[in-house]
């Protein structure tokens, strides 16, 4: 699949950034400021994406920026996925009051412009990699929980689960050996869609100044820096933005594709 190949390509670029980037993403050059995309800049080097207001090579910064996007994106998916899957399975399996409590919290979270909460939490804890990962992860647990809960609810009443329980299998065993494998493909689908959302949310928070702090290059932060130069140096914000958009479109299309492939029951939701 093209989408999986794209994510792998991005991962390779991120890992090999020191060798792929044509220049040091942090090295400033006063004479080479705001140079448009060129094969031969004033310093005799190619700047395919131009240079920014401090003379840093935009292409190199985009390449290094992919590290932030992927690390925060994947880690947030793991945090949100573990939490959401656990709560969803508990809610579906336990039922009753616990189920009601978990789902009410999920509803309340959905009833809330999450970006405001994210801004509030980050304002308290200070922006850092860890804070971003936890906040973005927390923002996504509801989607896993809802889908897993409904699947567990329908699995729970199936004969094979009843049979295991009748034979004396513990709840834990039923969950780990029989429920989890049955819902794994749903988790993969939701996780892919969540990856796209997490990457965009990280960029959005960095754009608002609450994510990765300068001078570390991140796509959202670069768009924020380039915003003041849109009139004179469009390339600073446009290139990281286009790459971000491409990543988001391709990853979420991959999620849609996986859904059709793995899990016909989710189609059309």
């Amino acid at each position, binding site marked *: 699949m093209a989408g999986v190949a794209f994510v792998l390509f991005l991962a390779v670029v991120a890992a090999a950034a020191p060798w792929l980037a044509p220049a040091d993403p942090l090295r400033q050059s006063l004479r080479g400021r705001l140079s448009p995309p060129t094969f031969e800049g004033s310093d005799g080097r190619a700047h395919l994406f131009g240079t920014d207001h401090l003379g840093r090579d935009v292409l190199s910064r985009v390449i290094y920026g992919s590290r932030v996007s992927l690390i925060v994106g994947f880690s947030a998916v793991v945090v949100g996925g573990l939490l959401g899957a656990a709560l969803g399975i508990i809610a579906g399996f336990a039922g009753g009051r616990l189920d009601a409590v978990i789902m*009410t*919290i999920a*509803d*309340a979270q959905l*009833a*809330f*412009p*999450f*970006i*405001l*909460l994210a*801004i*509030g*939490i980050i*304002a*308290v804890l200070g922006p850092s990699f860890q804070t971003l990962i936890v906040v973005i992860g927390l923002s996504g647990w509801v989607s896993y929980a809802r889908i897993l809960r409904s699947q567990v609810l329908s699995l729970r009443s199936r004969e094979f689960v009843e049979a295991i329980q009748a034979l004396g299998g513990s709840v834990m065993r039923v969950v780990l050996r029989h429920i989890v494998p049955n819902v794994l493909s749903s988790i993969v689908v939701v996780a892919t869609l969540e990856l*796209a959302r997490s990457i*965009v949310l990280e*960029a*959005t928070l960095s*754009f*608002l100044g609450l994510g990765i702090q300068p001078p570390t290059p991140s796509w*959202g932060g670069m*768009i924020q820096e380039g*915003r003041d130069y*849109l*009139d004179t140096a*469009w390339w600073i*914000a*446009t290139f990281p*933005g286009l790459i*971000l*958009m491409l990543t*988001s*479109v391709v*990853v*979420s*299309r991959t999620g849609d594709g996986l859904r059709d492939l793995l899990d016909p029951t989710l189609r*059309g939701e």
Partner: protein
Amino acid sequence: MRGFVPFVGHRIFRALIALWLVSTVVFVVMRLSGDPVPLLLPPDAPLSEILRVRHDLGLDRPLPVQYGVFLSNVVRGDFGRSIHYRVPAVDVVRGYLGATLELGMTAFFLAALVAVPIGLFSAMKRNSPLDHAAMTFALIGQSAPTFFLGILFILLLALKADLFPTSGRGDWKHLVLPALTLGAFAMASIARLTRSAVLEVLGADYIRTARAKGVSEMWVVAKHTLKNAAIPIVTITGLQFGTLLGGAVVTETVFSWPGIGRLAVQSINNRDYPVVQCTVFVAALLFIVINFVVDLLYGFLDPRIRTH
């Protein structure tokens, strides 16, 4: 309409719980985020002055007491005085609410008015080049980051083409770019859903019957298709309206639009707790009310839900 009162009652109960949870979380987060008093006073203010201001704001009382006072005030619509503007927080938020509603409503109606005909057209001309083009745009619109879309619009339509102003609030021209940016996601979602809802209805037996008995194609669409496809369309449209409120934070920041989204971001930076609490509460309230109205609309559109 049997079961209507319990249905509405249950929904109101859940909405109240959601509001309570939202306000509690906001209270906890804001109280954890540090003491606002040093921001209010000059750096060399004497300790007595700091203590006096803390006392005036009620910040010297135990947290549970602060929480109790907070909740009972919220119920009465009192969010305290803004620390930054020195007037009641509700009044501050009210002053900015108009701009957000103006932007939100414009974005929403723009999205719905553009998306529903596009979705309908795509479904009727299924697999035509126009259908493919529309759905490709919709896919991009659904996954494009809002803030970058805004930047692109500013770059292409305001700076290069000079058609619209880059920021601020004024005549209708100021509204176009922010409304397009804010509405893009909703537009894309509504168009895709309209298309699939209409396609589903067009495949139904009663449409074949209608055509077989010689009903004109116009009438098939107007009377039989749209009415039956309306339920999922209204659902997603209502949900999208709620989602718009979250997008307003980013859109308003990109376009310097003086609404509650930008107010929230600024107030967090000012540590203006009362205004942040009030903004978030108002946004959550709007979202919940809209979803509630959407739920009631179901019953209106679908007689099957009414009887059950």
